[in-house]
């Protein structure tokens, strides 16, 4: 069986540009490989500036990799074939608030990817929008709503609906829960886990919240300064971390949970 997504030798180099007065730092994402099966969750963990958001962007095609290949169902993803990528790999952004256009209603926001990527008729599009809204737990009346009329949790649901509307096989989420309140956060997590079971989505989850990554991911990848420090089964990594850096992360997490014991 071929994996849903397999990444081989993916790397990215941003050369440092320096002008007379201005210096900018370069960044290198060292070659990395991983595989993702359908229905699985891959958690990508790292501190700020470790390249985890960049990896997400490379996967959805917002940035061009310097070298390496991405295979989807054994088929190579080409840089210029944007349509294939748009249809199958979708992204959820960190601030759902800012990624929704305040001047459009929910249905207009959801319709846009359909117009651009599919040949559906207007009626089919409306049906699809209604179905997707129901899928994420919103009502079909919500399509007349503007961004400011929705609560935080509903906005997040709309952002997920926007990602799901093209029936993708893979969702890439960059810190989707960081800005949410605890109770809304668990609602969203439950929703994503349920959708994953129902639709068999592959889910790539970029975060720095160890507790969450541990809870929802099957596999984990730990990045530091553009290098993969450790990768493997999530349970194994967090229970018996091998690399020094991972141990440090896990320990600092534990020291927050049980401050008295150490």
């Amino acid at each position: 069986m071929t994996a849903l997504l397999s990444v081989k030798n993916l790397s990215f180099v941003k050369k440092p540009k320096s002008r007379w007065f201005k210096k900018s730092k370069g960044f290198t994402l060292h070659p990395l490989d991983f595989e993702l099966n359908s229905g699985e969750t891959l958690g990508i963990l790292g501190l700020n500036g470790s390249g985890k958001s960049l990896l997400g962007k490379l996967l959805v095609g917002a940035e061009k990799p310097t070298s390496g290949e991405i295979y989807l169902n054994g088929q190579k993803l080409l840089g210029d074939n944007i349509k294939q990528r748009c249809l199958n790999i979708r992204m959820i952004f960190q601030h759902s608030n800012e990624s929704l256009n305040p001047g459009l209603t929910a249905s207009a926001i959801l319709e846009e990817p359909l117009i651009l990527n599919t040949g559906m008729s207007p009626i089919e599009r409306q049906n699809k929008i209604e179905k997707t809204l129901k899928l994420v737990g919103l009502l079909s009346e919500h399509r007349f709503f503007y961004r400011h009329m929705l609560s935080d949790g509903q906005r997040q649901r709309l952002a997920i609906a926007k990602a799901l509307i093209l029936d993708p096989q893979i969702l890439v989420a960059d810190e989707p829960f960081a800005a949410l309140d605890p109770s809304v956060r668990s609602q969203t997590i439950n929703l994503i886990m349920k959708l994953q079971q129902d639709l068999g989505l592959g889910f790539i989850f970029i975060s720095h919240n160890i507790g969450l990554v541990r809870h929802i991911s099957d596999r984990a990848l730990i990045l530091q300064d553009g290098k993969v420090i450790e990768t493997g089964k999530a349970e194994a990594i967090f229970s018996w971390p091998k690399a020094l850096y991972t141990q440090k992360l896990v320990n600092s997490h534990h020291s927050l949970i049980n401050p008295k014991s150490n």
Partner: protein
Amino acid sequence: MALLDIRNLTLEIEGTSGWMKALDKINLTIEEGEIRALVGESGSGKSLIVQAIAGTIPENWVITADRLTWKGQDLLSMSANERRKVMREEIAVVFQNPVLSLDPSATLGEQLIESIPRSLVDGKWFWQRAAQRKEIAIKLLHKVGIRDHDSYLNSYPNQIADDISQKFLIACALVSSPKILIADDPTRGMEISTKTQILKLFTKLNQTRQLSILFVSHDLLAISSMADSMTVLYCGQTVESGKMSQLRKRPLHPYTKALLDSAPSFRKDLPPRTPLATLEGSMPTLQHLPIGCRLGPRCPRAQKECVKVPENRRVQEHSYSCHFPLHRDKK
């Protein structure tokens, strides 16, 4: 005696549909040397409480309280000058969003030096005083864990990282060695290693200087690692308050339980990839507040009586307001 004692604090805002109670009978006390956490989701009125204590509430909002006292002095009936004096010398506030609360047009050094009061420097001539001020500023920066003081004192707020500016604001707050530090969501959006650093700094200040801290946040992980006691807010009402250890072990209010359950890190027994426990729906807006207990429509244990506002009940140091608390079924 409690340092800060708030009883039945109510804040009303005039909206298009009449007066709305943004805060409804809030109770909060802070003892000397205590770290108290104030927990609630966004929109629950945490920051309003901080503003009410700091006295930065707009004038057209109505604020009433049975008690809002600082060491026995009533903060509400105080004259503006007296209040400013208290705020200057004894209460320090670190507001949300460190980058926005710094002046973008002045260097960090200028801002820190400006906040040092005249009473702390005793040089006769202005150059002596300036030198003393600089010395104090450098000492403060070292205290909050900024070592490379020279480069930071001369840089502008946009040039430094978020966590540094947070530490910097804490340094500004500590200038006049206050009795209490009110920190409004100081660890928001921080990664785990800087978060632990800031929390360690708070704990150290609390231990070495007997500084009381009111820690306002919704990050339960950060709170539970350092706070002695906790007050939970929901939608402008105090829901439950008590000792941290007790609340974590046996929460009485359904909302507190839901809040604690929503953090998977607290529950070791939870198998991976199982759904987390949540409450349905989301927090109501100010225009559409339910009558009675504001958790009512979302509460799994709600019954007929919940349309009345539950009164505050006390069991030793643990107080809660709920008609049907967990673990305490009616006989």
